[in-house]
C-alpha cells in the first residue's frame, strides 16, 4: 500500500465501523512506515478519547418539564428572553445611502419630469378638459435643454424652466383644484437645496433618466408609449 492511499483506507475502515486492527493491509503498512504509523495512532487516540470524553447524564427533570410545557395551553415555546434582532452595520449604511439617493435623485427627477401631482396626470371628469389635455401638456412642457443652456444666469434658469406664476399656498388650500405640483414644491422649505442637488447631479441623472425612459417606452407606459 502507498502512503497516499493510507488515510482514505483508514477512513473506509472507520466508515464501516470496524476496528482499525481488523484491517490487515493497514497493519502491514504501518510496520514499515513511521509517518503512517503516527497517523494511525492519532486516529486511534481520537476514537479512544471520544469514548472517554465526559458526557453528563441527561437530566431526569427533562421529561416532566417538557410534558407540562407541551400540555399547557397557550404557553410559548420560547424559554429564554425574547430574541433581539441585530441589524448589521452595513445594512444600516445601505438603507441610509438608498434614502439619500432617493431623496437626492429620485424625487427631483420625478417632479421635474412633470409626474407626481401634475394636473394632466390626474383623471378628470371634464370632457372638454380631457380633449384639451395634449395642448395643456404641451404648454406645461419645460423648455428643451438647448433653451435652458441659452440662459446665462443660473439663478434665472429655474424661472425659465417654470415660467408660470406660482400659486400661493393659501390659494391651494382654499381651492385645491388650482394647485400645481411646481407651486406646491416651490412653497416647501428646502426646495432650492433640492434643485441645487438635482442640478449638481445632472451628469448622473440625465443618462439614468434616459435609460429609464427608454425602458418605459419599450414597455409602452412612458411618455411616447402614452401618446401612441
Amino acid at each position: 500500500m502507498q502512503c497516499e492511499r493510507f488515510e482514505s483506507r483508514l477512513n473506509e475502515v472507520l466508515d464501516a465501523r470496524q476496528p482499525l486492527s481488523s484491517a490487515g493491509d493497514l497493519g502491514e503498512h504501518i510496520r514499515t512506515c513511521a509517518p503512517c504509523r503516527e497517523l494511525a495512532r492519532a486516529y486511534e487516540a481520537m476514537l479512544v478519547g471520544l469514548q472517554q470524553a465526559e458526557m453528563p447524564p441527561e437530566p431526569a427533570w427533562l421529561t416532566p418539564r417538557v410534558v407540562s410545557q407541551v400540555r399547557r395551553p397557550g404557553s410559548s415555546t420560547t424559554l429564554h428572553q425574547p430574541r433581539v434582532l441585530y441589524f448589521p452595520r452595513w445594512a444600516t449604511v445601505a438603507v441610509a445611502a438608498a434614502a439619500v439617493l432617493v431623496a437626492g435623485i429620485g424625487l427631483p427627477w420625478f417632479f421635474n419630469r412633470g409626474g407626481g401631482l401634475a394636473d394632466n396626470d390626474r383623471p378628470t371628469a371634464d370632457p372638454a378638459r380631457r380633449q384639451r389635455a395634449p395642448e395643456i401638456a404641451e404648454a406645461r412642457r419645460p423648455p428643451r435643454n438647448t433653451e435652458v443652456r441659452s440662459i446665462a444666469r443660473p439663478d434665472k434658469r429655474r424661472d425659465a424652466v417654470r415660467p408660470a406664476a406660482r400659486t400661493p399656498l393659501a390659494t391651494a388650500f382654499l381651492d385645491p383644484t388650482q394647485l400645481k405640483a411646481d407651486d406646491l414644491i416651490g412653497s416647501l422649505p428646502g426646495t432650492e437645496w433640492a434643485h441645487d442637488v438635482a442640478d449638481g447631479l445632472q451628469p448622473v441623472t440625465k443618462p439614468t433618466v434616459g435609460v429609464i425612459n427608454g425602458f418605459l417606452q419599450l414597455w409602452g407606459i412612458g411618455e411616447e408609449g402614452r401618446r401612441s
Partner: protein
Amino acid sequence: MPDDVSELVRRSLSGEESATTELVDRFRGHVFGLCYRMLGHRQDAEDVAQESFVRAMRSLANWDSQRGFLPWLLAIAGNRCRTVLAARRRLPKPSCEVEALPDARSFRRERHLGEEVALALGRLRYEYRQAFVLFHEQELTYAEIADVLGCPVGTVKTWVHRARRELADHLRRRGVVEESSDAV
C-alpha cells in the same frame, strides 16, 4: 421500532400524555448528548434539549412518518444549537483564550485524553462537528446524517473525514498521541 414510534406519535397527537412521556424518555439521551457535544456546556445543553423537545412535540403533526423520527428530532436540536452558538458568538469573548494553555505534555497526567478530544471538538467547524458526533456518538448512518443536515451523503462523508483529520492533527500537536495505546 419505527412502527412503535409511529404508534407513540399517533397516541401523543391524540392527546395521550403517557405517549408523549415515553417519546421524550426514549430520545432524551440522544438529544441531550448532541446538544452537549455541540455546545460544550451542560446548562446550555439542558435548556436547548428542553426547547428542542417542546418544539418537536408541538409540531409533531408535521413529522413525516416516512422519515426517521430520530433524524427529524436531531435536526431540530441541531438547528437550536446553531442558533445558540450564533447568539453566543455575538457576546464579548473572554480575555483568556484556550490557546493560551501550555502544551499538554507539561501536565499530561492531569489532562485526560477525553478532555483533549472534547477541546478539539469545540474547535471544529460546526458542520464537521455535527456530522462527526452524529456518526461516531449517535451512531447514525451516513444517509440519516444527510437527512438531518439536509445535504448529500458525499458531503457528509467529506465532513466526517475532515473532522477526523483535524482531530487527529490536534492530538498530535498537543502531544497526546504517544500516551494512547498502540494503534492497529
